[in-house]
């Protein structure tokens, strides 16, 4: 029973075999011409496995009418639901900025990313998000569902510049609207590093809780019907549960708790704050993240953000020239200092510590006219 999970290529082969058998079965019902009949016979003669598969499909087919009759949705509902499937867009990395036009060289390393648009998850977030959004915005923005498989998901860059890392067996739904951005954590855990966009506030839904983010890095996790949020850096507002209704009417949301760096809030099934730990164990909250950060030909700004998921003292790259520099390397993710030391060796780079962050500056002399 566990075998298909353990052996994905065998599972794929079985799926292909089942599809072949199903296709032959349907073709057979439509009527085969002479050539098709010969091809069908050849397919059957290939192995007893093919014969067994064909008989299995035939048996399944015999049950289909009775099984389909148990579907409770009527035709109209099914069609409407099917239309939502279009809204699930495949994952695409954000297009590289124009400045990133590179000389010929190795292509940037792409993180492996499991993307199975989970229908069940999609439905869950249609229910969670569509009502409010459709009313407010008049039209629906496409919603994307990202799901990680049993291995930890890679990191994902959303079109608004937000960076999301998914733990194994996790799923989020993302909708980037013209006036607001919504992320729903459907299951599992996610580390979210929010792209700065003051014109479009970002809201994260975890169970019944709604978090509003103000340029920050935080971890969210589903726990039963509730959830937790751990603020790595920056600030996150936990909105009062009633706020959802008030938002629809245009009123300002009421903030139940303003969570600061290092704080961990636990929310109950109704979305209310159940516990607040002032000094969360950040190491524990981020223990699921990969232990290593690898990058090939990525910008300093991009790599620095990946380190910022692990540390309460984020790296802030202030100099745009430094931020755009392309670097390659491999570091222990929990040793941001080693990375900072490496940055300090790059030409024209200065490091300044303080104010709860590590600022990376350009060298004053290199910017000054000679």
């Amino acid at each position, binding site marked *: 029973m566990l075998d298909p999970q353990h052996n994905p290529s065998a599972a794929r082969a079985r799926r292909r075999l*089942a599809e072949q058998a199903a296709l032959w079965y349907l073709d057979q019902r439509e009527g085969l011409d002479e050539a098709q009949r010969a091809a069908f016979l050849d397919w059957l003669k290939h192995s007893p496995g093919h014969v067994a598969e064909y008989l299995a499909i035939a048996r399944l087919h015999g*049950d289909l009418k009775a*099984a389909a009759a148990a579907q409770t949705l009527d035709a109209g509902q099914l069609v409407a639901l099917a239309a939502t*499937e279009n809204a699930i867009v495949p994952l695409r990395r954000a297009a590289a900025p124009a400045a990133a036009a590179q000389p010929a060289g190795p292509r940037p390393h792409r993180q492996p990313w499991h993307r199975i648009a989970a229908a069940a998850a999609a439905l869950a977030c249609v229910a969670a998000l569509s009502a409010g959004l459709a009313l407010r915005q008049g039209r629906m923005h496409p919603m994307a569902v990202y799901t990680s498989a049993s291995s930890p998901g890679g990191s994902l860059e959303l079109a608004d510049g937000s960076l999301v890392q998914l733990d194994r067996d996790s799923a989020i739904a993302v909708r980037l609207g013209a006036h607001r951005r919504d992320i729903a954590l459907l299951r599992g855990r996610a580390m979210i590093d929010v792209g700065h966009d003051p014109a479009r506030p970002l809201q994260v839904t975890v169970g019944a809780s709604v978090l509003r983010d103000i340029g920050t890095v935080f971890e969210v996790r589903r726990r039963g019907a509730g959830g937790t949020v751990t603020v790595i850096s920056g600030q996150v507002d936990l909105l009062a549960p009633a706020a959802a209704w008030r938002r629809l009417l245009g009123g300002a949301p009421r903030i139940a708790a303003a969570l600061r760096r290092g704080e961990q809030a636990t929310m109950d099934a109704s979305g209310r704050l159940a516990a607040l730990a002032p000094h969360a164990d950040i190491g524990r909250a981020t223990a699921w993240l990969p232990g290593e950060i690898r990058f090939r030909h990525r910008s300093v700004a991009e790599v620095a953000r990946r380190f910022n998921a692990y540390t309460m003292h984020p790296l802030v790259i202030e100099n745009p020239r430094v931020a755009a520099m392309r670097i390659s390397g491999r570091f222990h993710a929990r040793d941001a200092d080693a990375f900072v030391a490496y940055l300090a060796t790059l030409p024209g780079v200065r490091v300044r510590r303080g104010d709860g962050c590590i600022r990376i500056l350009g060298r004053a002399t290199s910017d000054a006219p000679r």
Partner: protein
Amino acid sequence: MKPDRARGLSRLFAEQHDPLKRYFLKRTAHAWDAQDLVQEVYLRLIAADRDGAGAIRNPEAYLYTVAANLLKQHATMKQRTPLGSDGLEDLLDRLATPCEAAAGVDRELRRRRLGELIGRLSPKCRAVLTLHYRDELGYREIGERLQISTHMVKKYIVKGLAICRQGMDRYA
């Protein structure tokens, strides 16, 4: 080690032994019958085709006929009542289940599970399958309602059938 607990367990096992044994017997008989029959059907298919090109005019009908004959022999051998008049459905059931009573129970259970699997398909796949098999709409009609080509409708049915087939396998 508490002797009471050990005795309790052994008593429990003794009480459960018969149902457990029946369960395993049923399972193994189930697996053995089906595999054996498929093997035999396959061998006859190969042999018949070797007898001469075009000897098998209708491969599907041939499969069913051979399977039905084998089941009839098998039933006689095992002193079971031969195949009833239910025809094809019964035949296919019997390919996988050792006796009629089990076939009936399994059929109901199977349909319920299959219904659950259909409910878990992607929205399009689920819609296509349900509209086709429950509402008896043709490919073209389904395509018009979902705004996809008839070719895609068939693809969704194939995909849905394969997913359900694999899903049912996991229950077995």
